[in-house]
């Protein structure tokens, strides 16, 4: 139990794995929740507010417009955010390990 563990020990510690998985899972869960709220909310909106969802916009019903057209850009936005954040997370994890001892193996 040395006060400052070597990067080797640090990478293999229970604590490192735990933080690693928790941070990545948290990001995934946030993105998935946003997505699921829209995906699973739309049938509910159709079920409870059929009149509202049948409003015509540029010829489409509101529900058709959301599902057939607007859904795709929304998913692109979520995946763009996820990719940016997860690349940042990975770089941060590498930086943390290397901060302890810069000449960690490649």
């Amino acid at each position, binding site marked *: 139990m040395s006060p400052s563990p070597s990067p080797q020990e640090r*990478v*293999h510690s*229970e604590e490192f*794995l735990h933080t*690693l*998985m928790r941070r*990545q*899972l948290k990001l*995934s869960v946030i*993105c*998935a929740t946003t*997505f699921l709220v829209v*995906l*699973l909310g739309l*049938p*509910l909106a*159709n*079920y409870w507010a*059929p009149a509202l*969802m*049948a409003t*015509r*916009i*540029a*010829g*489409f*019903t509101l*529900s*058709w417009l959301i*599902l*057939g*057209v607007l*859904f*795709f*850009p929304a*998913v*692109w936005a*979520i*995946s*763009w955010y*996820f*990719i940016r954040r*997860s*690349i940042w997370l*990975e*770089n941060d*994890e*590498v930086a943390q*390990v290397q901060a302890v001892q810069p000449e*960690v*193996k*490649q």
Partner: protein
Amino acid sequence: MSTPALPLALFAGVDPWIFACSFVTVIITIWMGFRSARTSKTASDFFVAGRSVSVGWNASAISGEYLSAASFMGVAGMVMSSGYDALWYPVCYACGYLFLLLFIAGPLRRFGAYTIPDFAEGRYDSPVFRKIAVCFVLFIGFFYTMPQMKGAGTTLAYIFPGLPYWVGVVLVGAVITLNVALGGMKGITLVQAVQYWIKLFAICVPIFVLMSVYGFYGRHVEVNDGRSIASSVVVNATSAAGGRDAAVTILRKPLGEKAPSDLAWVSPFGPLTTKAAKTAGLTAEQARPYSLLYTYSLIIALVCGTAGLPHILVRFYTNPDGVAAKKTTMWVMILIGVFYVFPPIFGVLGRDLLPELYAATGAKGTDKIVLELPRVLNEHGGVWGSVLSGITCAGAFAAFMSTFSGLLVSMTGALAHDVYGRMLRPKSSAAERMFAFKVSAVVIGAIAIGLGAQVEQLQINFMVGQAFAIAAASYFPLLFMSVWWRGMTMQGAATGMLGGGLAALACTTIINLSDLKIVDLAAFWKVNPLLRILCEQPAIWTVPLAIGLMIGVSKLTAATIPSDIRMKMLVLHAPEKLGLKQEYIQEHSAGAGH
């Protein structure tokens, strides 16, 4: 193809433009397949070559492999026949990718297992589990080849109006099988990438021309407002949005007897989801909860199923590093998202312009709307309608040829490499294995043709949905839980995957047998609409069942958790820059050494 062998009578009624376009696509595909097969001989060649491929090419290749006959023909056919509810298919086909990206793609790539059976063995150190996983490659594969065969049969029956459906299936199936057996058309990045752009071109160019002549997408949805139409009429659609009162004229033909009514078609919970409840004699109001259940089950099957499709996962490894893999996924989502906007437009325009198709069934029904619709332009004179129809036929060929050959390669690989090479004859020589590969290709091709010839009456899209339901209940829980829960044991994973997967397989088989009238269950479904829905769309209970079994059995067998689980988890989750994978391989070969 072997067209010269056909009797000349078949050429009566063949449109030369359509024939020429399809013929050229087939020849180019086969030629490209053979050309690239000559330059890359082994599987490792394929992967190494993949690593030097840029993000753009790789993303096109993944999209090209993913967009099958279901996406190209089935979605449009189903939107035409069922309306709004069918829109869930393209949306979930595209969005399932997000789940793959969020939970599975990164870790699996770091682990470096090339296929799901590889992952199953590596994660649990169990060759037995590998065999179970291989069986599901075959199950899902066969369910996925059936709709591709239906697409082939439908397209050929359209190009040659005199040709029976099954002849088309046999012809296309035989050509592709032969091609795979002779070593052409392996999953070559270039071929698949070009196929994507052929498909996108073939779906969007005809639709732009059609919309410029017959009116915009939204206007065609708008005229479906319940007005009765006596004969071929022009309906005035007034644009209420934006305060402009510009009157647009939209041509619309009267619907046949079998077409769903306007309101049922354009609103949620239409014919697709209420069929079971309607058969049972429930009123529209009583049927609504059943529809909601059906919709949710469908969403779960498609989203989770995409994340568990075996032949798509393989492609993630052709990226040089994790960052490139993520960027590729982003581009794949954009490419397939752009594509999926178009097929529903064919369905909508088809309902207004070509409602005759509602009356027909099988290969002559709504599944061929993408092929047939551009020909309405011929009413304006000229051959442009035929040329555009030829282009969509070419796209359809690209769709089922790329997907079927990709599936055939992965299934043949499973049979020749895993079943023959590892289980039956572990000591066989390289030449024997090569021979086994060819025999397997022919056997699997023959089974796929046999199955495909039976399913003329089933909708393409519906069948693909079933393949997704099986993948959702078997591979998705396996991958998701193995990646994120370290308490999983081999027994838990196997029980869950078998339990969920076999339950879904049994349900879909029962539904197919009953829909094809091989087993008569009509009376039973009439009394039990809920059971019919749970059987037709089983994902809502099979996915939780699989996950529940995995957790339960893993808790009971907690003593058998692999001893180096922490290291495995690190390899799955730690950034690649830390170099843990190499360390893991060294330790592993030094330690267990199997």
